[in-house]
């Protein structure tokens, strides 16, 4: 249960590092992040990634009851679309009233359980690359009604209105698949530097700003952004305006630890700069970043796995003996959409020993059936399970880190075992996706192919993660119509009739 914080309580964020392998420099560490009014977050930990303010497929009651998610990443671009007929309207979220239990407009609008910490950024995770890029005083965002210019000043004022617990100032990012050239990288650093200066000077002029700022670290080399980072360390750390760092590339962290060690005493959040990165992220990457010292991870693959019909199956530490035998590598996830007998009729949980709602109240056969029937509940149950696997994974990591005392580095030993035990990549999901989420997955370059196969076509190779032309995925998913009594497309089932004892073939 959450403690309601009385109005006017300006208690600040607290971050304690409870233990780390090395005292200085970059290293895995155990910590606790406490934000006023929210459940404290033991770190390392993960951040749930929302879409339009919701953890996909999960109603807020299910989040409260069945998810051990400590924080939620939200994107302002999910709330500020301008429908053509109502292009002058102020986005409704800005006028959200607060209540005693839901003390901020962002929490109140999204009905996010009060125990959950909100992290607001301008862009979704992963973000669609803007075709025209940013300008000196604005970034380009992608809403459900298309690309929109978001002046950095407007973003700041949105943050001040919505009052997320943690806000990430605007960063000049390309979000593209290729690294920017050095000229572009330099401009990214300069612009971001200017925007962050503007951010802090505006904040210092305003009276009410209880939220915490996690400054962006750009996905470019340290040598190009060192001036910006030095400013953070010299100006905003001493003034207590800076509360954490948000990394778009965690590999910059060792250099920061070497040059401005004071910055790595802050809580460190890992984000992903591009769609490609988020599609290739695995728990192996996460473990590596933990050993660099990252405390919090926004992990888009959790939602993506559920959408693909995958149940995550990895745990930390890996099951005993898996690394000493020469057996096959363990899969990181199991594809519940496959019509194998350990899916179709299995009353077993999705993953061994999992204690989540899905695994204790339901079984593989049901989730397989739901995926096969394209019932939305399949994705809900996978979301519950997959978030539970992440929570258990991070609990395992923290337990290993807690054993570090005495110099022996338990975590690093187990991390190596994990690397030997599990496959390097996720299996590709066969299941039809719940919705192509057309606009959100809009392709920048094109040519990626359609995300869902045509209805009732033969399920062939793995779906590609990007939807080429934003086909009407939403109406097929959210308002999916396989439904009740009068479903469409039922005709195509008919072939299955014979094999299933439903009806006999005559003659």
């Amino acid at each position, binding site marked *: 249960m959450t403690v309601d914080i009385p109005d006017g309580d300006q208690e600040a964020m607290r971050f304690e590092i409870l233990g780390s392998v090395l005292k200085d420099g970059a290293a895995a560490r155990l910590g606790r992040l406490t934000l006023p009014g929210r459940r404290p977050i033991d770190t390392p930990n993960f951040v749930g990634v929302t879409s339009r303010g919701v953890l996909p497929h999960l109603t*807020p009651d299910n989040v409260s009851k069945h998810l051990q998610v400590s924080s939620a990443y939200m994107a302002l671009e999910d709330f500020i679309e301008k429908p053509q007929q109502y292009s002058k309207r102020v986005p409704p979220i800005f006028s959200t009233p607060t209540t005693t239990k839901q003390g901020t407009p962002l929490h109140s609008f999204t009905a996010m359980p009060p125990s959950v910490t909100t992290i607001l950024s301008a862009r979704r995770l992963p973000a669609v690359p803007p075709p025209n890029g940013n300008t000196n005083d604005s970034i380009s965002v992608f809403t459900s009604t298309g690309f929109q210019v978001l002046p950095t000043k407007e973003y700041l004022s949105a943050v001040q209105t919505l009052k997320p617990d943690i806000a990430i100032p605007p960063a000049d990012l390309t979000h593209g698949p290729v690294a920017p050239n050095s000229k572009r990288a330099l401009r990214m650093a300069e612009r971001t530097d200017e925007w962050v200066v503007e951010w802090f000077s505006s904040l210092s002029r305003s009276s009410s700003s209880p939220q915490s700022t996690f400054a962006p670290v750009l996905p470019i080399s340290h040598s190009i952004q060192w001036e910006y980072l030095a400013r953070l360390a010299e100006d905003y750390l001493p003034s207590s305006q800076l509360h954490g760092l948000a990394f778009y590339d965690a590999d910059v962290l060792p250099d920061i630890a070497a040059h401005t060690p004071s910055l790595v005493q802050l809580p460190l959040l890992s984000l992903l700069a591009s769609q490609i990165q988020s599609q290739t992220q695995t728990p192996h990457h996460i473990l590596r970043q933990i050993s660099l010292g990252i405390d919090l991870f926004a992990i888009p693959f959790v939602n993506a796995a559920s959408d693909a019909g995958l149940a995550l199956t990895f745990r930390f530490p890996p099951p005993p003996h898996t690394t000493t035998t020469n057996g096959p590598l363990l899969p990181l996830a199991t594809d519940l959409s496959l019509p194998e007998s350990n899916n179709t009729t299995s009353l077993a949980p999705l993953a061994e020993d999992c204690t989540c709602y899905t695994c204790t109240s339901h079984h593989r056969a049901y989730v397989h059936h739901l995926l096969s029937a394209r019932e939305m*509940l399949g994705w809900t149950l996978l979301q519950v399970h997959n978030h539970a696997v992440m929570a258990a994974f991070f609990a395992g990591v923290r337990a290993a880190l807690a054993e570090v005392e005495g110099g022996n580095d338990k975590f690093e030993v187990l991390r190596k075992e994990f690397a030997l035990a599990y496959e390097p990549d996720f299996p590709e999901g066969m299941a039809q996706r719940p919705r192509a989420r057309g606009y959100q997955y809009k392709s920048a370059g094109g040519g990626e192919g359609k995300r869902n196969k045509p209805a009732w076509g033969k399920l062939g190779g793995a779906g590609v993660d990007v939807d080429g032309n934003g086909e009407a995925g*939403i109406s097929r998913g959210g308002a999916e119509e396989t439904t009740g009594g009068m*479903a469409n497309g*039922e*005709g195509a089932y008919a072939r299955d009739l014979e094999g*299933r004892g*439903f009806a006999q073939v005559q003659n």
Partner: protein
Amino acid sequence: MWAARRMASTISASSPALTFELVARCSTTRARASVLTLPHGPVPLPIFMPVATQASLKGLTPEQLEGTGCRLCLNNTYHLGLKPGQEVLDAVGGAHKLQGWKHNILTDSGGFQMVSLLKLANITEQGVRFLSPHDGTPMLLTPEHSISLQNSIGSDIIMQLDDVLVTTSPDKARMREAMERSVRWLDRCIAAHKHPDRQNLFCIIQGGLDLDMRRECCREMLARDTPGIAIGGLSGGEAKDDFCKVVAACTELLPDLKPRYVMGIGYPEDLVVSVALGADMFDCVWPTRTARFGNAITKHGVLNMKRELYAADFGPIEDGCGCPCCRPAEEEGAMGITRAFVHHNAAKETVAAHLLTLHNVWYQLSLMRQAREAIIADRFPDFVREFFRNLYPERSSYPAWAVTALKGVGIDLLET
């Protein structure tokens, strides 16, 4: 088989897998309040049964469905026969186990879906014949197949395979054939039914809009003494006046101590009028389907949350609604969902559909709970009048069919 016994304040009757206890009767209309005890627990009647077609209620977890107070929901035999299929149902141990549902399930026969979904279906004495649209193979669903599948599903109430025609069919001879065939098929279903000790086979009264044929069918079906009775073939586009006449003609003949199920009914005013006419059980996909189009059912009518009107409306979906979405966030187990939030995500995130589904199912169940309470307190006519007052701002806009039907059972909606 049907031993009625009088108890201190109630009367009840039992069959091997069901007890029906009549708790109260409206002193004006034919409305009844009862308790139907099925193998998976008691169910207060009258009741609306949400339709979990493919063993899932459109994104709600069984736990959320249970939270609405639902104790009896529908699965569709046709769909479960295809996915996951009889073999899997047998291996898993039936539909309750498949979907983790501790309460009761009712299944239809599958015949209606055949006829309505597969345009090439035709009906012979053997069963429903159709050509597989996939490869043109002739296929057949017989009463025996239907019961065998429903036995595998393990539903608490199973339905006979019937010969369904649209009520508006002008072919009287065909209508009679369908009615008589449905009676013959009931006999085949009874003979094929393997678990009468734990599954209740309900007959289905047919006969189109011809009241005499309906009465004749009632007599034939009643002679077979099934534990419950359904009125079928309605909700197929007939005039509401005709619908009410059929329901009234049937309930007049039906025994007091058996549950009466009007199939395919779900609009709130249809439910309220049908209860007044003496029906107990209803099902319809409309409340859950309309949720997915962004529609919220409220006592003042259906509101489309996608309209711009609701974009910055920070009130609950329905004022005073007791569902987990609408109650203020301060209350235990409540979410404090606003219309603005539903608007924001309608047709964009599945969560908006889930929330409206939850609200709509709650609305339907709560409407029947209120009707039941009103019957028990013998103030059902007041309940009906208040229901119509809320739904229509002007008395002049009350639907004529409802006024007529209710007048027939002693409620004058227009009386001042």
